[in-house]
């Protein structure tokens, strides 16, 4: 796969401006989540030794972390729904990834609603006519 210019080395990104609150689209361009928070590699808490490199983005997060970003506190890490940084194929006005949404935790509520509510109502699985 050819690299999209937006994900090549050398680009400068500001988190608030380019990443947080952007729409994430899966391999089929279906919206799957908004970027609610970002998970970074841990840095040793406290003092930072001279020469230590800055943390790296590991995952985009969506789901319960939105509530804590707005209202404070933090959910246990087991409830962070992740979109791994390595899946990203384009960082534009939307963020595109290379996987189908069904492979990811962030869509489990969507799938649950589909399987237990909407899919059970007659006509729910067909496109409108």
């Amino acid at each position, binding site marked *: 796969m050819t690299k999209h210019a937006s994900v090549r080395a*050398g680009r400068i990104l500001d988190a608030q401006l380019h990443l947080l609150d952007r729409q994430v689209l899966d391999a089929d361009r279906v919206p799957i989540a908004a970027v609610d928070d*970002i998970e*970074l590699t841990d840095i040793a*808490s406290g003092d930072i030794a001279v020469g230590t*490199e800055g943390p790296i983005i590991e995952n985009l997060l969506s789901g319960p972390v939105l509530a*804590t970003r707005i209202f404070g506190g*933090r959910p246990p890490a087991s409830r962070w729904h992740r979109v791994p940084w390595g899946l990203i194929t384009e960082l534009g006005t939307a963020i595109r990834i290379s996987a189908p949404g069904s492979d990811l935790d962030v869509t489990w509520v969507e799938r649950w609603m589909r399987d237990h509510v909407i899919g059970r109502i007659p006509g729910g699985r067909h496109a409108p006519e």
Partner: protein
Amino acid sequence: MLLSDILGSAAFDGDGNRLGAVVDARFRLEGRTSPAQARMVALIISPRSTSSYLGYERKAASRPVILDRLLRWMHRGSYLVNWEDVAHIELHRVVLRPGFERRDAALEE
């Protein structure tokens, strides 16, 4: 670590003086992977407002002129601090090294 642990943190200089709040984090894409890795290279500190710039931190964004001026005025005095000048990070508190350098925060892109 969550990015939101850093964003909104109070920033202090080496002597314990409060400088303002961390309003954004700047990353640089690096390495040969696709996508390239995003490494944090700087923090943006605003002495006045923790609200969003609404996109007017970019040099290219300047219209409508009145909104551009208003947002820049609200964030006047904002500056960029390189990661090398960050001495200490804990929850909601960032301390800079003595003699840290204030750089222009505007984004060229």
